[in-house]
C-alpha cells in the first residue's frame, strides 16, 4: 500500500509537470489526430545554467519532430516528452534518472547534454532497464556504460578523419590544432592527429583551451611560431568565432579549417568579417539537396522563422528515430532497447538513413559536405585550393 500511494504521488506530480508544460505552450505538441494515453519520452537536459541555450535548441527540434510524428502517432497513441532541467549538472541528472526509471510512464530517456551529467546517470538507467539515448554524447565511453546506452551522435571516429582529409585535400602539409579542452575536444584531437599523420599532414602544434576562455592572442602567437600553413579548430561555434576573429590581430593570415561543430548561423554572426574564408564541413547543411534535409529545413523555417542549426537537427533526428522504434516495436522499455538494435534505415537529416551498429550501439556513416564561408554565408566548397602563405 505505501509503495502504491507513493507511485500515485509520483504519477500525480508527473501529470502536473505535463499539464504545466502544456500550459506554457512549450513541450508537448497538439495531439489532435492520435488519440489515447500519450506515450512519454523523458528528457534530461539543461534549461538553465551555462548550457541553457542548447536545451532551448533541443526543444525546437523536438517540437518540430513531434508535430510530424503526431499526425498519426506511435502505435496510434500521441507521443510527448517531459523535459526535466538538469543544468547539465551530474547531481541533478542522477536524481532525474531515478525519477524517470521509477516512473512507468517514461518509456525511453533522452540526454543529458554533457558527458559529465550523462555518464553519471548511466548506471542508474542501465540497472533500471531504461534506454538512455544520448544524442549529443560523443564521449567514446558513453555507450560502453551498458546495453541500454545508445547514441546517434556523430562519432568522432567518423568525423575527425574526414576533417583531416579535408585539410589534406586543401593541400595543407603542416597544421596547428586548437582544441576545446573537454572530453569531446580531447578525444577529437587525438583522432584528428592520428588520421592527419596517415594522410601525410604534420601537426606542428596542439593547444587545448578551457570552454570559458575568451582571449586567444597569446595562444595564437604560439601557433604562429610553430609556422603552420593552416589552423585547425576543434571548437564549438562561439569559441571558434572568438579565435577566428583574433587570428588577424596577431598577424596570422593562414587559412582556418574548423570541425563541423562550428556550423551554425551564429558562427557567422559572431565571427563577422573575419569568418569569411573559413573552411568547415558539416553533417547538416540546409542547402543540401537531400530530401530529408530539405523537408526538415522548410518545416523548421515555417515554424520558427529562422535557419536551423546542427543542434536543432540532431534533436529532431533523435525524436524521429525513437518514434520509429516505438511505433514498430512497442512501448515496452525492453522492446525499445531490442528495437534499436533491429531498426533499419530510419530517414535522418544527419545520416540520410540511420541504422545502429549493434556492437557499438552507435550509428555510422554520417553524411557530410565540405563548406567554406563566403560573403557571410556557408556555401559548398568549390574545390579550389587556397594559396597557402
Amino acid at each position: 500500500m505505501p509503495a502504491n500511494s507513493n507511485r500515485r504521488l509520483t504519477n500525480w506530480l508527473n501529470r502536473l509537470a505535463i499539464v504545466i508544460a502544456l500550459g506554457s505552450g512549450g513541450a508537448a505538441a497538439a495531439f489532435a489526430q492520435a488519440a489515447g494515453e500519450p506515450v512519454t519520452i523523458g528528457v534530461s537536459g539543461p534549461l538553465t545554467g551555462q548550457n541553457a541555450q542548447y536545451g532551448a535548441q533541443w526543444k525546437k527540434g523536438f517540437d518540430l519532430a513531434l508535430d510530424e510524428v503526431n499526425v498519426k502517432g506511435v502505435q496510434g497513441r500521441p507521443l510527448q516528452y517531459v523535459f526535466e532541467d538538469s543544468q547539465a549538472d551530474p547531481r541533478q541528472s542522477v536524481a532525474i534518472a531515478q525519477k524517470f526509471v521509477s516512473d512507468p510512464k517514461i518509456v525511453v530517456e533522452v540526454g543529458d547534454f554533457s558527458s559529465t551529467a550523462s555518464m553519471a546517470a548511466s548506471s542508474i538507467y542501465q540497472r533500471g532497464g531504461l534506454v538512455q539515448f544520448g544524442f549529443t554524447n560523443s564521449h567514446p565511453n558513453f555507450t560502453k556504460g551498458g546495453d541500454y546506452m545508445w547514441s546517434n551522435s556523430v562519432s568522432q571516429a567518423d568525423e575527425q578523419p574526414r576533417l583531416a582529409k579535408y585539410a589534406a585535400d586543401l593541400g595543407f602539409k603542416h597544421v596547428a590544432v586548437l582544441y576545446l579542452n573537454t572530453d569531446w575536444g580531447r578525444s577529437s584531437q587525438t583522432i584528428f592527429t592520428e588520421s592527419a599523420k596517415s594522410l601525410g599532414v604534420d601537426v606542428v602544434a596542439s593547444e587545448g583551451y578551457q570552454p570559458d576562455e575568451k582571449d586567444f592572442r597569446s595562444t595564437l602567437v604560439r601557433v604562429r611560431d610553430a609556422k603552420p600553413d593552416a589552423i585547425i579548430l576543434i571548437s564549438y561555434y562561439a569559441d571558434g568565432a572568438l579565435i577566428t576573429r583574433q587570428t588577424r590581430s596577431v598577424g596570422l593570415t593562414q587559412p582556418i579549417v574548423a570541425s563541423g561543430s562550428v556550423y551554425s548561423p551564429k558562427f557567422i554572426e559572431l565571427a563577422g568579417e573575419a569568418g569569411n574564408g573559413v573552411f568547415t564541413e558539416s553533417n547538416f547543411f540546409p542547402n543540401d539537396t537531400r530530401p530529408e534535409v530539405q523537408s526538415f529545413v522548410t518545416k523548421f523555417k515555417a515554424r520558427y522563422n529562422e535557419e536551423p542549426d546542427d543542434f536543432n537537427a540532431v534533436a529532431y533526428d533523435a525524436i524521429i528515430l525513437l518514434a520509429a522504434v516505438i511505433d514498430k516495436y512497442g512501448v515496452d522499455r525492453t522492446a525499445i532497447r531490442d528495437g534499436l538494435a533491429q531498426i533499419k534505415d530510419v530517414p535522418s537529416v544527419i545520416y540520410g538513413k540511420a541504422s545502429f551498429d549493434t556492437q557499438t550501439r552507435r550509428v555510422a556513416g554520417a553524411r557530410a559536405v565540405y563548406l567554406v564561408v563566403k560573403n557571410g554565408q556557408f556555401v559548398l566548397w568549390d574545390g579550389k585550393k587556397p594559396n597557402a602563405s
Partner: protein
Amino acid sequence: MSSFIDYTVNGLVIGNIYALLAVGLALIFGVSNLINFAHGSVYTIGAYIGWAAITFLHTPLPVTMAIVFVACALVGMAIERIGLRPLQGSARIAPLLATIGISFVLDQVVQLVFSASPRALPNDLPDWRIDIGGGSIGALDLLIAGVGVGAAALLFVFLRFTKLGFAVRATAQDREAALQMGVNVNAVNSTVFAIASALGGISGLLVGMYYNHIDPAMSFQATLKGIVAQVIGGVGNVPGAIVGSLLLGLIESYGIALLGTTYRNLFAFVLLILFLIWMPNGLFGGRSAPQSEPLTGAFIAPSKPLRLPRWALWAMTGAAFALPLVFGAPYLLQTLTNAWLAAMLALSLTLMAGTAGQISFGHAGLLAIGAYASALLTVDLNAPTWLTIPAAGLITSALGTLLIFPAFRLRGHTIAIATLAIGEVVSLVILNWESLTRGAMGVTGIPPLSIFGHEIYAPREVYWLCLAIVVALALVQTRLLTSHFGRTLRAIRDDDVAARSYGIRLDRYKALAFAFGGFGAGVSGAITAHLYSYINHQTFDSQVSLLALTMVILGGMGNVVGAILGAIVLAGLPELFRLTAEYRILIYGIVLLLLIRFRPQGLMGTL
C-alpha cells in the same frame, strides 16, 4: 625575441580588460569591505543594455556608453538599497552572500529576457590598427585602456580632493566614526555602488564589443579575474587594481608562452596564492595601510542557537532511517542521498568556517581530491571500495590540510579569496595532470560501492549507507565541539590574539580542524565518484563550493544540526522548484536573499 614583444603586448591587452573590472571591484571593496560577487552580473547587464540600445535604437557609441552608464548606475543603487542596506549591522558574511544571491537573480533575469545563446555586439569604431611586433592593436584596445586609466584617475582625484571623496574615505576607514561626524553613510554607499556599477556596465559593453560576443554566463569568470587582479594590486586600492590587472595579464601571457594554453588559469591562481601569502596587502597596499580586515570571527553572526532536545534529534534520525521502508520512491531517496552527501560536505565546512573561523570558498576541491583518490585506487589498482573510501578520506585530509596550511595566517576576506584560488588550482591540476587523472577525458568505469563482495547500488542501500556516515560524522563532531578542542577552536575564532596569549598554537588547532573536516569531505567525494561511475574535473566545480557555503550559513555557522538541515533544504529546494523549469534558479536566488535578509544567523543559529 619578436615573440616576446608579442606576448608582452598581448598580456597588456588582456590586462587592460581585467583592469576595467578590477577598478569597480576595488572601489566597492575599499568602501564597504565587501567582495561584490554581483559585479560580474552588472557587467553582463551593461553589455546587454548596450546591445539593446544598438540593435533597437541604433545609437552611436558615445550615446550607447551614456545609456549604459546611467542604467547600470541605477542598477547599482538598487542593489545597494534593496539588497545590501537592510543587512547593515548583521554579520559581514550576510552582505557577501547577498551579493552571491543577487548575482544568481540578475544572471537569470538576463538569461530569461535575452535567452542563453551568445549574441554579437558590433561596434562602429573606425577599423584601423597599429602594428606592434608581429601583431597589432585596434581602436577598441586604446579606448578600453583610456576608459580604464581615465576612470582610475578620475576616481583617484575624486577620492583625494572632493568633499564627497573625503566622506567615502572616511566611511571606508571607520563607518561608525564617519556616522558620528555627520557623514551620510548611506548616501556614500549608494554613490559608490552607482559609480562602480556604471563602470562595471561600461566594461561589459566594451569587452562585449571587443570580443563581438556577449552571453549571460560571462559574469562569473569576469568576477573571478577581477578579484584576482585587485588582490594583486592591493584590495580596495584603485590605482593598484590597474597595475594588478596588467601584471595578471602579463603573467598569464608568459605562462601560455612557456607551457601552453591549458596552464593559463593555473598561472593566474598560483600567482594569486603567492601574493596572498607573501604580500597580502598587494603591491600597493603597503605596510601602513589601515588594518580594515575584520577579525577572523567577524564572519559569524552572534546568536543564541536553537537547541533541539536530544530525544527529538534521535527521533528524527530514527525517522530518517525508517523512511525508505515507508516511502520507497527512488527519486525521493536519490534526492535525499544527494542531501546526505552534501551534508558530509557541509559538516566539514561548518567546522572549518563556523567553528574555526576559516571560511572556505574552495571546498569542492576537497570533494574532487577524495573522488579522484578513491576512483583511481579502484580503477588503477583494483582496490576494494570499502578500503578506498576511508583511504580517500585520509588522503583528502592530508592533502587538503597541506594545501591550506600556508593560508592559516590570513584573515577575513583574504582567506576567502585564497581558498577560492586553491579550489580552482585543484581543478586545474586535475585537468592538466593527464598521466594520473586522464585530464579532460575524466575517469570512466568507476566500480559501484561494495562491502565484502556485496554491491551497493539499490537506492535504499545507498541511502542508508550515506545516512549512517552522516550520523557518525555528526556525532563525532558534536563530541569534538563540546570538548576542550571545540572550545579552543571557538576561542581562536572569536579572538585569535587573546587565544595566542593563552599559549594556544593556532596553526596546530586549525590543522586539526582541517584534518577532521577534510576526512568527511573526502569520503563524500569518494562515494559520489562510485555512485556516478564517471567523474571529470568539472564534476566538482566552484558552484559546488558556493552551494556548500550557502548550506552552512543557512543552517547556522558551526551548528552541526544546522549544517545537515541546510544540506537537506538546499539539495531539496531545486528539486521542489523543478515544476517551474526555467524559473527555478531565479526562485532559488530570491529565497536565498530572503533568508539572508530575515535570518542571517541561519535557521538553527550559530554556535
